[in-house]
């Protein structure tokens, strides 16, 4: 309910309160959904890697499922990042995709890397070996996150716009407030979906064990 309320508030601020950008015009409003989703995607991949590290460190099986669900969430939000980014690119650059932007290519690499995580995971039989292999793979992927995040600042292509610089956010206070509310809403929504999916997966596993015990 809180996530839905925040989403409603964020949309109201993004569309009716935040002023229209001078150069970008109305298409700048994609920023309020695109950037929070991209940041949430990074966060989910990072969380998945952290849970994978905990699995390898402590050897507790519950971290395997937590890592998997976090990476699953990250992939969904990653897909949405690519989709909304492509729509913005079409309005701004006139093309759906630009291979000249390091930020785009690195994000696509990160996304495809974690797509391959599922191929690895489901090609192995359920058990400790699959959990460990998936965890190691998830940990490798986390190295791509800071590279992808910082690529826009390290690269000098200037194709992808930079909103947050060392001088702070390059927008008005109202725009920044709308962005922060949308960011909070997307993060909260991702957290709620994470908890629901995790509960469902755990219940599914427990029921399978119970069925085996009863039969």
């Amino acid at each position: 309910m809180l996530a839905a309320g925040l989403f409603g508030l964020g949309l109201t601020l993004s569309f009716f309160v935040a002023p229209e950008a001078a150069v970008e015009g109305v298409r700048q409003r994609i920023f309020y959904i695109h950037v929070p989703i991209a940041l949430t995607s990074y966060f989910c991949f990072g969380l998945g890697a952290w849970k994978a590290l905990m699995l390898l460190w402590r050897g507790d099986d519950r971290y395997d499922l937590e890592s998997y669900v976090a990476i699953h969430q990250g992939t969904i939000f990653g897909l949405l990042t690519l989709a909304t980014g492509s729509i913005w690119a079409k309005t701004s650059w006139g093309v759906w995709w630009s291979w000249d932007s390091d930020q785009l290519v690195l994000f696509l690499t990160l996304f495809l890397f974690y797509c391959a995580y599922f191929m690895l995971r489901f090609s192995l039989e359920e058990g400790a070996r699959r959990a460990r292999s998936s965890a190691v793979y998830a940990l490798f992927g986390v190295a791509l996150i800071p590279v992808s995040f910082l690529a826009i600042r390290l690269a000098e292509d200037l194709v992808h716009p930079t909103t947050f610089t060392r001088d702070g956010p390059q927008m008005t206070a109202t725009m920044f407030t709308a962005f922060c509310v949308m960011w909070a809403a997307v993060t909260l929504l991702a957290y709620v979906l994470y908890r629901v999916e995790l509960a469902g997966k755990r219940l599914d596993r427990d029921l399978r064990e119970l069925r085996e015990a009863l039969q």
Partner: protein
Amino acid sequence: MSAGQYVAAAYAVVFVTLLAYVAIIAAKLVRLQRDVSELVELARRRDRPPEPAREVTRA
């Protein structure tokens, strides 16, 4: 397409995808609920004492 329509498309893509995701999770929860009911029935059948064997009478 105008810029406004592209903006609407971007938000629509997000909402439709999230709605589909929630619908998939809801469908899975319904399946789990059905599994729970089946297992409860199975457990009840196991706990029920076996019926006494009927005597066979011959004429």
